[in-house]
Protein backbone atom coordinates (compact mmCIF):
# COMPACT_ATOMS: atom_id res chain seq x y z
CA UNK A 1 0.00 0.00 0.00
CA UNK A 2 1.07 3.55 -0.43
CA UNK A 3 0.78 6.40 1.98
CA UNK A 4 -2.33 8.09 0.61
CA UNK A 5 -1.11 11.52 1.66
CA UNK A 6 1.87 11.34 -0.71
CA UNK A 7 -0.24 10.67 -3.73
CA UNK A 8 -3.40 12.66 -3.13
CA UNK A 9 -2.51 15.48 -0.85
CA UNK A 10 -4.90 17.81 -2.60
CA UNK A 11 -4.80 21.45 -3.59
CA UNK A 12 -7.71 23.84 -4.20
CA UNK A 13 -6.18 24.53 -7.62
CA UNK A 14 -6.71 20.98 -8.79
CA UNK A 15 -9.24 20.08 -11.49
CA UNK A 16 -10.17 16.51 -10.74
CA UNK A 17 -11.19 14.30 -13.61
CA UNK A 18 -9.21 11.08 -13.41
CA UNK A 19 -8.43 11.55 -9.72
CA UNK A 20 -11.95 12.46 -8.69
CA UNK A 21 -12.62 9.13 -7.04
CA UNK A 22 -9.34 9.10 -5.09
CA UNK A 23 -10.13 9.23 -1.41
CA UNK A 24 -13.60 7.68 -1.58
CA UNK A 25 -13.59 4.65 0.74
CA UNK A 26 -13.13 1.40 -1.23
CA UNK A 27 -12.78 3.34 -4.46
CA UNK A 28 -11.08 0.33 -6.06
CA UNK A 29 -14.16 -1.88 -5.71
CA UNK A 30 -16.61 -2.30 -8.55
CA UNK A 31 -19.61 -1.40 -6.41
CA UNK A 32 -18.20 1.98 -5.50
CA UNK A 33 -17.13 2.50 -9.10
CA UNK A 34 -20.65 1.77 -10.34
CA UNK A 35 -22.08 4.24 -7.83
CA UNK A 36 -19.86 6.93 -9.33
CA UNK A 37 -20.63 6.73 -13.06
CA UNK A 38 -18.66 3.50 -13.50
CA UNK A 39 -18.95 1.69 -16.85
CA UNK A 40 -21.47 4.24 -18.17
CA UNK A 41 -18.96 5.37 -20.79
CA UNK A 42 -18.49 1.78 -21.94
CA UNK A 43 -22.23 1.43 -22.37
CA UNK A 44 -22.30 4.63 -24.38
CA UNK A 45 -19.30 3.65 -26.51
CA UNK A 46 -20.82 0.25 -27.34
CA UNK A 47 -23.76 2.12 -28.87
CA UNK A 48 -21.43 4.16 -31.10
CA UNK A 49 -19.62 3.15 -34.28
CA UNK A 50 -16.00 2.20 -33.52
CA UNK A 51 -14.76 4.95 -35.85
CA UNK A 52 -16.85 7.52 -34.03
CA UNK A 53 -15.20 6.49 -30.76
CA UNK A 54 -11.78 6.98 -32.36
CA UNK A 55 -12.78 10.39 -33.71
CA UNK A 56 -14.12 11.50 -30.35
CA UNK A 57 -10.81 10.62 -28.70
CA UNK A 58 -8.86 12.24 -31.54
CA UNK A 59 -10.83 15.48 -31.30
CA UNK A 60 -10.47 15.65 -27.53
CA UNK A 61 -6.76 16.42 -27.93
CA UNK A 62 -5.81 13.61 -25.55
CA UNK A 63 -2.08 13.10 -25.92
CA UNK A 64 -0.06 10.16 -24.63
CA UNK A 65 0.87 10.53 -20.98
CA UNK A 66 3.76 8.05 -21.15
CA UNK A 67 6.26 10.56 -22.46
CA UNK A 68 6.10 11.17 -26.17
CA UNK A 69 2.73 12.97 -26.18
CA UNK A 70 1.30 11.55 -29.39
CA UNK A 71 -2.42 12.15 -30.01
CA UNK A 72 -4.08 8.96 -28.74
CA UNK A 73 -7.03 8.89 -31.16
CA UNK A 74 -4.67 9.47 -34.06
CA UNK A 75 -2.59 6.48 -32.97
CA UNK A 76 -5.72 4.32 -32.82
CA UNK A 77 -6.71 5.43 -36.32
CA UNK A 78 -3.50 3.88 -37.73
CA UNK A 79 -4.72 0.39 -36.84
CA UNK A 80 -5.85 -1.31 -40.05
CA UNK A 81 -9.57 -2.12 -40.13
CA UNK A 82 -8.99 -5.51 -41.71
CA UNK A 83 -6.33 -7.74 -40.27
CA UNK A 84 -5.61 -11.43 -40.72
CA UNK A 85 -3.97 -11.46 -37.29
CA UNK A 86 -5.69 -10.59 -33.99
CA UNK A 87 -5.40 -6.99 -32.78
CA UNK A 88 -4.30 -6.13 -29.26
CA UNK A 89 -4.50 -3.35 -26.69
CA UNK A 90 -1.48 -3.09 -24.41
CA UNK A 91 -1.50 -0.83 -21.39
CA UNK A 92 1.94 0.41 -20.40
CA UNK A 93 2.11 0.31 -16.60
CA UNK A 94 5.88 -0.01 -16.46
CA UNK A 95 6.19 3.42 -14.80
CA UNK A 96 9.96 3.65 -14.35
CA UNK A 97 10.94 7.14 -15.46
CA UNK A 98 12.70 8.66 -12.43
CA UNK A 99 10.48 11.30 -10.85
CA UNK A 100 7.25 9.66 -12.00
CA UNK A 101 4.71 8.06 -9.65
CA UNK A 102 1.28 8.83 -11.05
CA UNK A 103 0.19 5.54 -12.60
CA UNK A 104 0.50 4.12 -9.11
CA UNK A 105 -2.46 5.99 -7.55
CA UNK A 106 -4.48 5.47 -10.75
CA UNK A 107 -4.17 1.71 -10.34
CA UNK A 108 -4.39 1.72 -6.56
CA UNK A 109 -7.45 3.92 -6.17
CA UNK A 110 -9.27 3.53 -9.49
CA UNK A 111 -8.40 0.31 -11.34
CA UNK A 112 -11.86 0.07 -12.91
CA UNK A 113 -11.43 3.45 -14.59
CA UNK A 114 -8.37 1.99 -16.31
CA UNK A 115 -10.17 -1.23 -17.23
CA UNK A 116 -13.05 0.77 -18.69
CA UNK A 117 -10.61 2.86 -20.73
CA UNK A 118 -8.93 -0.27 -22.07
CA UNK A 119 -12.31 -1.77 -22.99
CA UNK A 120 -13.31 1.34 -24.92
CA UNK A 121 -9.94 1.35 -26.72
CA UNK A 122 -10.44 -2.33 -27.53
CA UNK A 123 -13.89 -1.69 -28.96
CA UNK A 124 -12.62 1.29 -30.97
CA UNK A 125 -9.96 -0.73 -32.78
CA UNK A 126 -12.06 -3.91 -32.73
CA UNK A 127 -9.65 -5.94 -30.64
CA UNK A 128 -10.61 -8.82 -28.40
CA UNK A 129 -7.68 -8.99 -26.02
CA UNK A 130 -5.65 -6.67 -23.85
CA UNK A 131 -2.68 -6.87 -21.52
CA UNK A 132 -1.59 -4.59 -18.70
CA UNK A 133 2.21 -4.71 -18.43
CA UNK A 134 3.03 -3.76 -14.82
CA UNK A 135 6.56 -3.24 -13.54
CA UNK A 136 7.68 -6.06 -11.25
CA UNK A 137 8.14 -3.81 -8.24
CA UNK A 138 4.42 -2.89 -8.31
CA UNK A 139 3.28 -6.29 -7.06
CA UNK A 140 0.67 -4.93 -4.66
CA UNK A 141 -0.82 -2.92 -7.52
CA UNK A 142 -0.96 -5.96 -9.74
CA UNK A 143 -2.97 -7.69 -7.02
CA UNK A 144 -5.38 -4.74 -6.85
CA UNK A 145 -5.79 -4.68 -10.63
CA UNK A 146 -6.19 -8.49 -10.76
CA UNK A 147 -9.00 -8.26 -8.21
CA UNK A 148 -10.69 -5.55 -10.25
CA UNK A 149 -10.39 -7.63 -13.42
CA UNK A 150 -12.02 -10.57 -11.63
CA UNK A 151 -14.88 -8.35 -10.50
CA UNK A 152 -15.34 -7.02 -14.03
CA UNK A 153 -15.55 -10.58 -15.41
CA UNK A 154 -18.03 -11.56 -12.71
CA UNK A 155 -20.32 -8.64 -13.61
CA UNK A 156 -20.10 -9.12 -17.37
CA UNK A 157 -17.92 -6.11 -18.19
CA UNK A 158 -15.19 -8.42 -19.45
CA UNK A 159 -15.50 -11.70 -21.34
CA UNK A 160 -18.04 -12.69 -23.96
CA UNK A 161 -20.89 -10.56 -25.29
CA UNK A 162 -20.23 -7.60 -23.02
CA UNK A 163 -23.46 -5.87 -21.93
CA UNK A 164 -25.28 -7.84 -24.63
CA UNK A 165 -23.48 -5.98 -27.39
CA UNK A 166 -21.79 -8.91 -29.07
CA UNK A 167 -18.39 -7.39 -28.20
CA UNK A 168 -15.93 -9.83 -26.58
CA UNK A 169 -12.83 -8.77 -24.68
CA UNK A 170 -10.32 -10.56 -22.46
CA UNK A 171 -7.88 -8.75 -20.20
CA UNK A 172 -5.08 -9.77 -17.84
CA UNK A 173 -2.06 -8.30 -16.11
CA UNK A 174 1.53 -9.24 -16.90
CA UNK A 175 4.39 -8.66 -14.48
CA UNK A 176 7.72 -7.25 -15.56
CA UNK A 177 10.86 -8.12 -13.61
CA UNK A 178 12.93 -4.97 -13.34
CA UNK A 179 14.02 -3.26 -16.58
CA UNK A 180 13.42 0.40 -17.44
CA UNK A 181 13.87 -0.36 -21.12
CA UNK A 182 10.74 -2.52 -21.07
CA UNK A 183 8.74 0.71 -20.80
CA UNK A 184 9.79 1.52 -24.37
CA UNK A 185 6.89 0.26 -26.44
CA UNK A 186 8.67 -2.13 -28.79
CA UNK A 187 10.94 -3.52 -26.06
CA UNK A 188 7.77 -4.01 -24.04
CA UNK A 189 6.27 -6.08 -26.85
CA UNK A 190 9.35 -8.30 -26.99
CA UNK A 191 9.25 -8.67 -23.23
CA UNK A 192 5.57 -9.59 -23.39
CA UNK A 193 6.45 -12.25 -25.95
CA UNK A 194 8.84 -13.84 -23.46
CA UNK A 195 12.01 -12.44 -25.01
CA UNK A 196 14.64 -10.09 -23.66
CA UNK A 197 13.39 -6.51 -23.74
CA UNK A 198 15.33 -5.29 -26.75
CA UNK A 199 13.70 -2.63 -28.94
CA UNK A 200 12.41 -3.36 -32.43
CA UNK A 201 13.27 -1.34 -35.50
CA UNK A 202 10.45 1.05 -36.51
CA UNK A 203 8.73 1.10 -38.96
CA UNK A 204 6.68 -1.00 -38.96
CA UNK A 205 4.99 0.70 -36.03
CA UNK A 206 3.15 -1.41 -33.47
CA UNK A 207 -0.22 -0.09 -34.70
CA UNK A 208 0.45 -2.10 -37.85
CA UNK A 209 2.79 -4.90 -36.69
CA UNK A 210 2.85 -5.27 -32.92
CA UNK A 211 2.24 -8.02 -30.40
CA UNK A 212 2.52 -11.48 -32.00
CA UNK A 213 2.72 -9.64 -35.31
CA UNK A 214 -0.82 -8.25 -35.00
CA UNK A 215 -1.86 -4.58 -35.02
CA UNK A 216 -1.40 -3.26 -31.48
CA UNK A 217 -2.01 -0.02 -29.66
CA UNK A 218 0.15 0.73 -26.66
CA UNK A 219 -0.94 3.43 -24.27
CA UNK A 220 0.06 4.60 -20.85
CA UNK A 221 -2.16 4.01 -17.78
CA UNK A 222 -3.02 7.70 -17.45
CA UNK A 223 -3.84 8.03 -21.16
CA UNK A 224 -6.33 5.16 -21.00
CA UNK A 225 -7.80 6.34 -17.67
CA UNK A 226 -8.92 9.53 -19.41
CA UNK A 227 -10.87 7.75 -22.13
CA UNK A 228 -14.12 7.05 -20.20
CA UNK A 229 -14.42 10.74 -19.30
CA UNK A 230 -13.99 11.80 -22.92
CA UNK A 231 -16.68 9.41 -24.10
CA UNK A 232 -19.06 10.37 -21.32
CA UNK A 233 -18.64 14.16 -21.47
CA UNK A 234 -17.57 14.67 -25.06
CA UNK A 235 -14.43 15.67 -26.92
CA UNK A 236 -15.22 19.36 -26.75
CA UNK A 237 -15.58 19.40 -22.97
CA UNK A 238 -12.30 17.57 -22.59
CA UNK A 239 -10.40 19.73 -25.07
CA UNK A 240 -11.56 22.88 -23.29
CA UNK A 241 -10.05 21.78 -19.98
CA UNK A 242 -6.60 22.27 -21.48
CA UNK A 243 -4.91 24.36 -24.15
CA UNK A 244 -5.17 24.05 -27.95
CA UNK A 245 -4.01 20.57 -29.10
CA UNK A 246 -3.34 19.67 -25.45
CA UNK A 247 -6.65 18.43 -24.12
CA UNK A 248 -7.62 17.72 -20.56
CA UNK A 249 -5.76 17.60 -17.32
CA UNK A 250 -2.58 15.93 -16.30
CA UNK A 251 -1.28 14.27 -13.17
CA UNK A 252 1.86 16.09 -12.11
CA UNK A 253 4.20 14.43 -9.63
CA UNK A 254 5.85 17.17 -7.60
CA UNK A 255 8.99 15.86 -5.93
CA UNK A 256 12.46 16.82 -4.78
CA UNK A 257 13.04 20.07 -2.89
CA UNK A 258 9.41 21.05 -2.59
CA UNK A 259 7.38 21.83 0.54
CA UNK A 260 4.35 19.69 -0.37
CA UNK A 261 5.42 16.83 -2.61
CA UNK A 262 2.54 14.92 -4.14
CA UNK A 263 0.58 13.94 -7.22
CA UNK A 264 -1.74 16.76 -8.31
CA UNK A 265 -4.24 16.84 -11.17
CA UNK A 266 -4.02 20.20 -12.92
CA UNK A 267 -5.30 21.50 -16.24
CA UNK A 268 -2.93 21.08 -19.15
CA UNK A 269 -1.06 24.35 -19.56
CA UNK A 270 -0.97 25.21 -15.84
CA UNK A 271 1.92 27.63 -15.23
CA UNK A 272 5.02 25.91 -13.83
CA UNK A 273 5.84 28.78 -11.50
CA UNK A 274 2.44 28.59 -9.84
CA UNK A 275 2.69 24.84 -9.68
CA UNK A 276 5.82 25.15 -7.58
CA UNK A 277 4.85 28.15 -5.51
CA UNK A 278 1.12 27.68 -4.97
CA UNK A 279 0.36 24.00 -5.47
CA UNK A 280 3.58 22.65 -4.01
CA UNK A 281 3.96 25.32 -1.34
CA UNK A 282 7.27 26.62 -2.69
CA UNK A 283 10.81 25.34 -2.36
CA UNK A 284 11.38 23.25 0.75
CA UNK A 285 12.63 25.26 3.72
CA UNK A 286 12.17 28.57 1.87
CA UNK A 287 15.36 27.97 -0.10
CA UNK A 288 16.03 29.54 -3.48
CA UNK A 289 15.15 27.65 -6.63
CA UNK A 290 18.00 26.51 -8.85
CA UNK A 291 16.17 24.56 -11.52
CA UNK A 292 13.39 22.16 -12.42
CA UNK A 293 13.27 18.87 -14.30
CA UNK A 294 9.82 19.34 -15.86
CA UNK A 295 8.86 15.83 -17.01
CA UNK A 296 11.00 13.03 -15.61
CA UNK A 297 14.75 12.50 -15.61
CA UNK A 298 15.11 12.28 -19.38
CA UNK A 299 14.11 15.93 -19.91
CA UNK A 300 16.49 18.87 -20.22
CA UNK A 301 16.68 20.83 -16.96
CA UNK A 302 15.08 24.28 -16.85
CA UNK A 303 16.92 26.93 -14.84
CA UNK A 304 15.14 29.10 -12.26
CA UNK A 305 14.88 31.84 -14.91
CA UNK A 306 13.12 29.54 -17.34
CA UNK A 307 10.10 28.48 -15.30
CA UNK A 308 7.58 30.95 -16.69
CA UNK A 309 6.19 28.28 -18.92
CA UNK A 310 2.74 26.77 -19.43
CA UNK A 311 2.86 23.06 -18.71
CA UNK A 312 1.59 21.59 -21.94
CA UNK A 313 3.52 19.61 -24.55
CA UNK A 314 4.00 22.42 -27.05
CA UNK A 315 4.89 25.19 -24.59
CA UNK A 316 7.46 23.12 -22.71
CA UNK A 317 8.97 22.02 -26.03
CA UNK A 318 9.24 25.68 -27.02
CA UNK A 319 11.06 26.35 -23.77
CA UNK A 320 13.62 23.72 -24.81
CA UNK A 321 12.50 20.82 -22.69
CA UNK A 322 9.68 18.27 -22.57
CA UNK A 323 6.48 17.68 -20.64
CA UNK A 324 7.47 14.01 -20.65
CA UNK A 325 5.93 11.80 -18.01
CA UNK A 326 4.69 14.50 -15.63
CA UNK A 327 7.50 14.07 -13.10
CA UNK A 328 8.35 17.60 -11.93
CA UNK A 329 11.55 17.47 -9.88
CA UNK A 330 12.43 20.66 -8.00
CA UNK A 331 16.11 21.49 -7.43
CA UNK A 332 17.07 24.05 -4.77
CA UNK A 333 20.13 26.27 -4.39
CA UNK A 334 22.02 23.64 -2.37
CA UNK A 335 21.74 21.05 -5.16
CA UNK A 336 25.00 20.04 -6.85
CA UNK A 337 24.18 19.88 -10.55
CA UNK A 338 27.25 17.76 -11.26
CA UNK A 339 25.89 15.20 -8.79
CA UNK A 340 22.44 15.36 -10.40
CA UNK A 341 24.00 14.79 -13.84
CA UNK A 342 26.10 11.95 -12.43
CA UNK A 343 23.16 10.19 -10.78
CA UNK A 344 21.01 10.47 -13.87
CA UNK A 345 23.88 9.20 -16.06
CA UNK A 346 24.38 6.27 -13.70
CA UNK A 347 20.73 5.37 -14.12
CA UNK A 348 20.84 5.33 -17.92
CA UNK A 349 24.10 3.40 -18.00
CA UNK A 350 22.50 0.80 -15.73
CA UNK A 351 19.33 0.63 -17.81
CA UNK A 352 20.79 0.67 -21.32
CA UNK A 353 19.84 -2.70 -22.77
CA UNK A 354 23.14 -2.90 -24.64
CA UNK A 355 21.54 -3.61 -27.99
CA UNK A 356 23.01 -0.66 -29.88
CA UNK A 357 26.52 0.71 -29.57
CA UNK A 358 26.08 4.51 -29.15
CA UNK A 359 23.77 3.95 -26.18
CA UNK A 360 25.66 1.10 -24.54
CA UNK A 361 29.09 2.74 -24.83
CA UNK A 362 27.95 6.35 -24.59
CA UNK A 363 25.95 5.98 -21.38
CA UNK A 364 28.86 4.14 -19.72
CA UNK A 365 31.28 6.87 -20.78
CA UNK A 366 29.01 9.60 -19.44
CA UNK A 367 28.61 7.83 -16.14
CA UNK A 368 32.34 7.20 -15.72
CA UNK A 369 33.29 10.73 -16.69
CA UNK A 370 30.78 12.36 -14.38
CA UNK A 371 31.58 10.03 -11.48
CA UNK A 372 35.27 10.81 -11.75
CA UNK A 373 34.56 14.50 -12.14
CA UNK A 374 32.29 14.72 -9.12
CA UNK A 375 34.81 12.87 -6.97
CA UNK A 376 37.28 15.71 -7.57
CA UNK A 377 39.43 14.11 -10.26
CA UNK A 378 38.04 16.12 -13.16
CA UNK A 379 40.19 17.74 -15.82
CA UNK A 380 39.48 20.80 -17.88
CA UNK A 381 38.53 18.97 -21.07
CA UNK A 382 35.90 16.87 -19.34
CA UNK A 383 32.95 19.15 -19.97
CA UNK A 384 33.63 19.33 -23.68
CA UNK A 385 34.36 15.60 -23.86
CA UNK A 386 31.14 14.86 -21.99
CA UNK A 387 29.17 17.12 -24.29
CA UNK A 388 30.74 15.45 -27.30
CA UNK A 389 29.85 11.99 -26.02
CA UNK A 390 26.25 13.06 -25.30
CA UNK A 391 25.88 14.71 -28.71
CA UNK A 392 27.10 11.50 -30.32
CA UNK A 393 24.39 9.50 -28.58
CA UNK A 394 21.61 11.93 -29.45
CA UNK A 395 19.54 10.77 -32.41
CA UNK A 396 21.87 7.85 -33.15
CA UNK A 397 20.24 5.05 -31.19
CA UNK A 398 17.67 2.40 -32.04
CA UNK A 399 15.24 3.53 -29.38
CA UNK A 400 14.90 6.84 -27.52
CA UNK A 401 16.69 5.61 -24.37
CA UNK A 402 19.88 7.09 -25.79
CA UNK A 403 18.23 10.48 -26.23
CA UNK A 404 16.83 10.19 -22.72
CA UNK A 405 20.36 9.85 -21.39
CA UNK A 406 21.86 12.53 -23.61
CA UNK A 407 19.33 15.34 -23.18
CA UNK A 408 19.59 15.97 -19.43
CA UNK A 409 23.39 15.67 -19.61
CA UNK A 410 23.65 18.18 -22.45
CA UNK A 411 21.42 20.66 -20.64
CA UNK A 412 23.46 20.44 -17.43
CA UNK A 413 26.83 20.68 -19.21
CA UNK A 414 25.62 23.78 -21.03
CA UNK A 415 23.50 25.58 -18.47
CA UNK A 416 25.57 24.81 -15.37
CA UNK A 417 29.09 24.90 -16.78
CA UNK A 418 30.08 27.24 -13.96
CA UNK A 419 29.41 24.49 -11.45
CA UNK A 420 31.83 22.19 -13.25
CA UNK A 421 34.41 24.98 -13.20
CA UNK A 422 33.87 25.45 -9.48
CA UNK A 423 34.54 21.73 -8.87
CA UNK A 424 37.73 21.99 -10.92
CA UNK A 425 38.92 25.09 -9.07
CA UNK A 426 38.40 23.51 -5.64
CA UNK A 427 39.37 19.98 -6.61
CA UNK A 428 36.25 18.74 -4.81
CA UNK A 429 32.49 19.15 -4.69
CA UNK A 430 31.60 22.53 -3.16
CA UNK A 431 28.22 21.30 -1.92
CA UNK A 432 27.37 19.41 1.20
CA UNK A 433 26.10 15.90 0.85
CA UNK A 434 22.32 15.67 1.02
CA UNK A 435 20.87 14.45 4.26
CA UNK A 436 17.31 13.52 5.09
CA UNK A 437 15.16 16.62 5.18
CA UNK A 438 11.83 16.40 6.93
CA UNK A 439 9.19 18.80 5.67
Amino acid at each position, binding site marked *: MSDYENYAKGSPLEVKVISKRFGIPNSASIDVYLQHDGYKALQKALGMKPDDVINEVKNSGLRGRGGAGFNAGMKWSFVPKQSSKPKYVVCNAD*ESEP*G*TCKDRPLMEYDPHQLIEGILIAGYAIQSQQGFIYIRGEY*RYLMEIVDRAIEEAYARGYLGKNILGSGFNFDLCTH*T*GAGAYECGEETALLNSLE*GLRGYPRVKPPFPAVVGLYGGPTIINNVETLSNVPHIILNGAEWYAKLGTPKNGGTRLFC*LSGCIARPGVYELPMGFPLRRMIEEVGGGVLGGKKLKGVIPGGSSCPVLTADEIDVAMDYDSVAKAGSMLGSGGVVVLDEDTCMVKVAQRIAKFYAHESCGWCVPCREGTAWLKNLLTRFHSGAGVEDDVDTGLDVALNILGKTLCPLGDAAAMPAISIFKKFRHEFEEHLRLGRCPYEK*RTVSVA
Partner: protein
Amino acid sequence: MLSDALKAKFDKIIARYPLKRSAIVPLLMFAQDEIGYVSDEAIEEIARRVEVRPIEVIEDIGYYSMLHRQPLGKYNIQVCTNVSCLLRGGEEILEHCSKKLGIGHKQTTPDGLFSLEEVECLGACCGAPAMQVNYDFYENLTPQKIDALIEKLRSDGAKKSP
Protein backbone atom coordinates in the same frame (compact mmCIF):
# COMPACT_ATOMS: atom_id res chain seq x y z
CA MET B 1 10.12 -29.17 -5.34
CA LEU B 2 7.62 -26.66 -6.65
CA SER B 3 4.35 -26.71 -4.75
CA ASP B 4 1.10 -27.90 -6.29
CA ALA B 5 -0.39 -24.46 -5.75
CA LEU B 6 2.42 -22.93 -7.79
CA LYS B 7 2.00 -25.49 -10.57
CA ALA B 8 -1.72 -24.74 -10.72
CA LYS B 9 -0.90 -21.05 -10.93
CA PHE B 10 1.51 -21.80 -13.79
CA ASP B 11 -1.25 -23.51 -15.75
CA LYS B 12 -3.63 -20.62 -15.21
CA ILE B 13 -1.08 -18.03 -16.32
CA ILE B 14 0.10 -19.90 -19.41
CA ALA B 15 -3.51 -20.22 -20.58
CA ARG B 16 -3.85 -16.44 -20.78
CA TYR B 17 -1.46 -16.03 -23.70
CA PRO B 18 -1.76 -16.88 -27.40
CA LEU B 19 1.91 -17.90 -27.22
CA LYS B 20 3.05 -19.96 -24.23
CA ARG B 21 6.53 -18.45 -23.98
CA SER B 22 4.95 -15.11 -23.05
CA ALA B 23 4.51 -16.58 -19.58
CA ILE B 24 8.26 -17.05 -18.94
CA VAL B 25 8.90 -13.91 -16.89
CA PRO B 26 5.73 -14.09 -14.79
CA LEU B 27 6.42 -17.77 -14.04
CA LEU B 28 10.00 -16.98 -13.06
CA MET B 29 8.79 -14.23 -10.73
CA PHE B 30 6.23 -16.48 -9.01
CA ALA B 31 8.70 -19.34 -8.73
CA GLN B 32 11.23 -16.99 -7.19
CA ASP B 33 8.64 -15.69 -4.73
CA GLU B 34 8.05 -19.23 -3.51
CA ILE B 35 11.60 -20.61 -3.53
CA GLY B 36 13.52 -17.41 -2.77
CA TYR B 37 15.53 -17.53 -5.98
CA VAL B 38 15.36 -19.11 -9.44
CA SER B 39 16.50 -22.71 -9.03
CA ASP B 40 17.69 -25.09 -11.76
CA GLU B 41 14.56 -27.11 -11.18
CA ALA B 42 12.36 -24.04 -11.74
CA ILE B 43 14.14 -23.29 -15.01
CA GLU B 44 13.65 -26.86 -16.26
CA GLU B 45 10.01 -26.92 -15.22
CA ILE B 46 9.21 -23.55 -16.81
CA ALA B 47 11.03 -24.41 -20.03
CA ARG B 48 9.12 -27.68 -20.28
CA ARG B 49 5.76 -26.02 -19.67
CA VAL B 50 6.17 -23.18 -22.14
CA GLU B 51 7.90 -25.41 -24.67
CA VAL B 52 11.26 -23.67 -25.03
CA ARG B 53 14.81 -24.83 -24.30
CA PRO B 54 16.12 -24.09 -20.77
CA ILE B 55 18.79 -21.80 -22.25
CA GLU B 56 16.03 -19.48 -23.48
CA VAL B 57 14.72 -19.15 -19.94
CA ILE B 58 18.24 -18.51 -18.67
CA GLU B 59 18.69 -15.77 -21.27
CA ASP B 60 15.70 -13.94 -19.84
CA ILE B 61 16.96 -14.27 -16.27
CA GLY B 62 20.17 -12.48 -17.18
CA TYR B 63 18.25 -9.54 -18.58
CA TYR B 64 15.86 -8.70 -15.73
CA SER B 65 17.28 -7.15 -12.57
CA MET B 66 14.68 -8.59 -10.21
CA LEU B 67 15.45 -12.20 -11.10
CA HIS B 68 18.33 -13.89 -9.29
CA ARG B 69 19.92 -17.33 -9.19
CA GLN B 70 21.07 -17.13 -5.54
CA PRO B 71 18.96 -16.73 -2.41
CA LEU B 72 18.83 -13.20 -0.99
CA GLY B 73 18.11 -12.29 2.59
CA LYS B 74 14.66 -13.05 3.93
CA TYR B 75 14.14 -9.29 3.86
CA ASN B 76 15.64 -7.68 0.79
CA ILE B 77 16.01 -3.98 1.51
CA GLN B 78 16.04 -1.93 -1.69
CA VAL B 79 16.91 1.72 -1.19
CA CYS B 80 16.27 4.19 -4.00
CA THR B 81 18.98 6.80 -4.58
CA ASN B 82 17.65 8.16 -7.86
CA VAL B 83 17.16 11.87 -8.30
CA SER B 84 13.98 12.61 -6.29
CA CYS B 85 15.25 10.44 -3.44
CA LEU B 86 18.81 11.79 -3.76
CA LEU B 87 17.48 15.30 -3.12
CA ARG B 88 15.75 14.12 0.07
CA GLY B 89 18.65 12.13 1.51
CA GLY B 90 18.39 8.74 -0.20
CA GLU B 91 22.15 8.25 0.00
CA GLU B 92 22.10 8.88 3.74
CA ILE B 93 19.36 6.27 4.09
CA LEU B 94 21.42 3.77 2.11
CA GLU B 95 24.53 4.43 4.21
CA HIS B 96 22.52 4.17 7.39
CA CYS B 97 21.13 0.77 6.36
CA SER B 98 24.58 -0.36 5.36
CA LYS B 99 26.11 0.60 8.73
CA LYS B 100 23.23 -0.79 10.70
CA LEU B 101 23.35 -4.17 8.94
CA GLY B 102 27.09 -4.32 8.33
CA ILE B 103 26.63 -5.15 4.67
CA GLY B 104 27.00 -3.30 1.37
CA HIS B 105 25.22 -3.23 -1.97
CA LYS B 106 24.06 -6.70 -3.04
CA GLN B 107 25.33 -8.36 0.14
CA THR B 108 23.49 -10.54 2.64
CA THR B 109 23.90 -10.76 6.42
CA PRO B 110 25.50 -14.02 7.67
CA ASP B 111 22.24 -15.06 9.36
CA GLY B 112 20.47 -14.79 6.00
CA LEU B 113 17.91 -12.36 7.38
CA PHE B 114 18.74 -9.19 5.45
CA SER B 115 20.17 -8.25 2.11
CA LEU B 116 20.72 -4.74 0.83
CA GLU B 117 20.48 -3.23 -2.61
CA GLU B 118 20.79 0.28 -4.02
CA VAL B 119 18.02 0.51 -6.62
CA GLU B 120 16.67 2.85 -9.25
CA CYS B 121 13.43 4.85 -9.03
CA LEU B 122 10.70 2.79 -7.37
CA GLY B 123 7.82 5.05 -8.34
CA ALA B 124 7.61 6.51 -4.84
CA CYS B 125 9.21 9.85 -5.68
CA CYS B 126 6.57 11.92 -3.86
CA GLY B 127 7.32 9.95 -0.69
CA ALA B 128 11.10 10.32 -1.00
CA PRO B 129 13.34 9.04 0.39
CA ALA B 130 11.79 5.67 -0.28
CA MET B 131 12.61 1.99 -0.24
CA GLN B 132 11.04 -1.41 -0.67
CA VAL B 133 11.45 -4.39 1.60
CA ASN B 134 10.60 -7.30 -0.66
CA TYR B 135 7.40 -5.95 -2.27
CA ASP B 136 6.40 -3.53 0.52
CA PHE B 137 6.93 0.19 0.14
CA TYR B 138 8.32 2.42 2.91
CA GLU B 139 8.32 6.15 2.27
CA ASN B 140 9.30 9.47 3.88
CA LEU B 141 12.13 7.57 5.55
CA THR B 142 14.36 8.83 8.33
CA PRO B 143 17.24 7.02 10.04
CA GLN B 144 14.96 6.61 13.09
CA LYS B 145 12.25 4.95 11.01
CA ILE B 146 14.85 2.59 9.53
CA ASP B 147 16.09 1.62 13.00
CA ALA B 148 12.58 0.83 14.20
CA LEU B 149 11.75 -1.14 11.05
CA ILE B 150 14.92 -3.22 11.15
CA GLU B 151 14.32 -4.07 14.82
CA LYS B 152 10.79 -5.12 13.99
CA LEU B 153 11.87 -7.26 11.04
CA ARG B 154 14.59 -8.83 13.17
CA SER B 155 12.10 -9.98 15.77
CA ASP B 156 9.52 -11.04 13.14
CA GLY B 157 12.21 -12.96 11.29
CA ALA B 158 13.39 -14.71 14.44
CA LYS B 159 9.83 -15.70 15.35
CA LYS B 160 8.86 -17.14 12.00
CA SER B 161 11.93 -19.20 11.19
CA PRO B 162 11.68 -22.82 12.39
